């Protein structure tokens, strides 16, 4: 019998090790798996490499994970966020490493990692600083940059509904990086607003088929990072 539901966040995150590469879904505050990130702060794994489009905001979620000193390296496209200095302060002090990747290249590298595509050539960033030191090659008269697929040990993502097979749907632009990251991690851990009976999700509308999902946690009333930041919350 297949049942991916796990009872507690603690159990779900239990085996995350120091030094793990962790993809964290969300685009800014939309679709950020706040409860899972806070669980990871409680769990305490250190020397993490985190993949996220941003660097968190305020003192909750990803920003709090960074402030807790658990992140050694961030792979992202836009670490500047209004109202958060968590990443910037550590970065200026040389206490955190940054790999800056154009947003579309980041998404495509994650997709390639999940799809078994080892590397690909993209025109994005050709002729810029971000292509320095990278192989380039001309295809159809256009300079392209060789980029490698990106995989992770763990993906922490947020979805709307799940069934026991781990089939997922998302909500509006909270979808963003979540489905792509689900494909690229050895272990994909998902928080959802509701676990629904098998057969409740239209097979034509499944966004993430259960094949990509390992553990599902029901967080029935998730807090929204945007509201926590507005309220000036600090975690823990």
């Amino acid at each position, binding site marked *: 019998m297949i049942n991916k539901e796990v009872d507690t966040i603690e159990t779900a995150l239990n085996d995350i090790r120091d030094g793990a590469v962790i993809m964290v879904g969300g*685009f800014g505050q*939309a679709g950020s798996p706040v409860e899972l990130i806070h669980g990871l702060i409680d769990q305490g794994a250190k020397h993490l490499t985190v993949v996220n489009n941003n660097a968190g905001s305020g003192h909750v979620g990803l920003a709090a994970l960074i402030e807790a000193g658990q992140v050694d390296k961030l792979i992202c496209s836009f670490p*500047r966020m209004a109202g958060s200095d968590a990443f910037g302060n550590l970065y200026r002090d040389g206490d955190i490493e940054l790999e800056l990747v154009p947003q*579309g290249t980041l998404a495509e590298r*994650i997709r390639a990692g999940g799809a078994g595509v080892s590397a690909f050539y993209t025109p*994005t960033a050709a002729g*810029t600083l971000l292509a320095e030191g990278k192989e380039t090659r001309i295809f159809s008269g256009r300079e392209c940059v060789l980029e490698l697929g990106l995989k992770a040990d763990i993906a922490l993502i947020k979805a709307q509904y799940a069934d026991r097979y781990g089939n997922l749907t*998302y909500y509006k632009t909270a979808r963003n990086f979540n489905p792509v990251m689900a494909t690229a991690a050895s272990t994909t851990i998902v928080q959802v607003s509701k676990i629904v009976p098998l057969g409740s999700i239209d097979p034509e509308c499944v966004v993430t088929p259960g094949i990509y999902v390992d553990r599902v946690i029901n967080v029935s009333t998730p807090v*929204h990072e945007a509201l926590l930041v507005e309220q000036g919350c600090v975690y823990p």
Partner: protein
Amino acid sequence: MAQRAANDIPDGSIVNLGIGIPELIASVIPEGREVLYHSENGLLGMGPAPTPEQRDHDLVNAGKKMVTAVEGASFFHHADSFSMIRGGHIDICVLGAMQVSECGDLANWSTGDPDALPAVGGAMDLVGGAKQIYVLTQHCSKKGKSKILQRCSYPLTGKGVVNRIYTDLAVFNVEPDGLHVEEIAPGVSMGLLQERTGCSLIYNERRGITI
């Protein structure tokens, strides 16, 4: 300036608007044109800012501001969204600029200051992918330096990617032989325009319509 750029967006276009001034374009598109807005965070058919009742922190644009979705919109994930961009399916992308060169190089992500926190977002993907790149910017920086230059001194977002430039002083077309002045703002002389611009301009009398 936004109005002038909006006039050049044809009916039926799929458009991606950069964060900041370019966002204003959506509200000044001439009547009768149906334009679909793409937001790179996974929405085609972005609508205007929400009413208080419509506010939804999970329905945001690329600048993380709350938006709405029009009838006929679709949601998709980030890799699919940038496939639309990289694959050349966006008709027009309008971006801000720190510097633009006469050969269409664009710098809009970094001043190269080693103390600044680098951040690029989707700008490099957009300039390399959209069919047409329009730049919408003040002609000069706050310190009065021209943003339109022979060569960008800041790190590039993309090489030879800009097709049109809309500033408060004029509209330019980037062509193989250099920057063509398409229109000049009312009260601006060609002499003043050239004086405020960091590269030689090509001026065709026939095109001297005020904006």
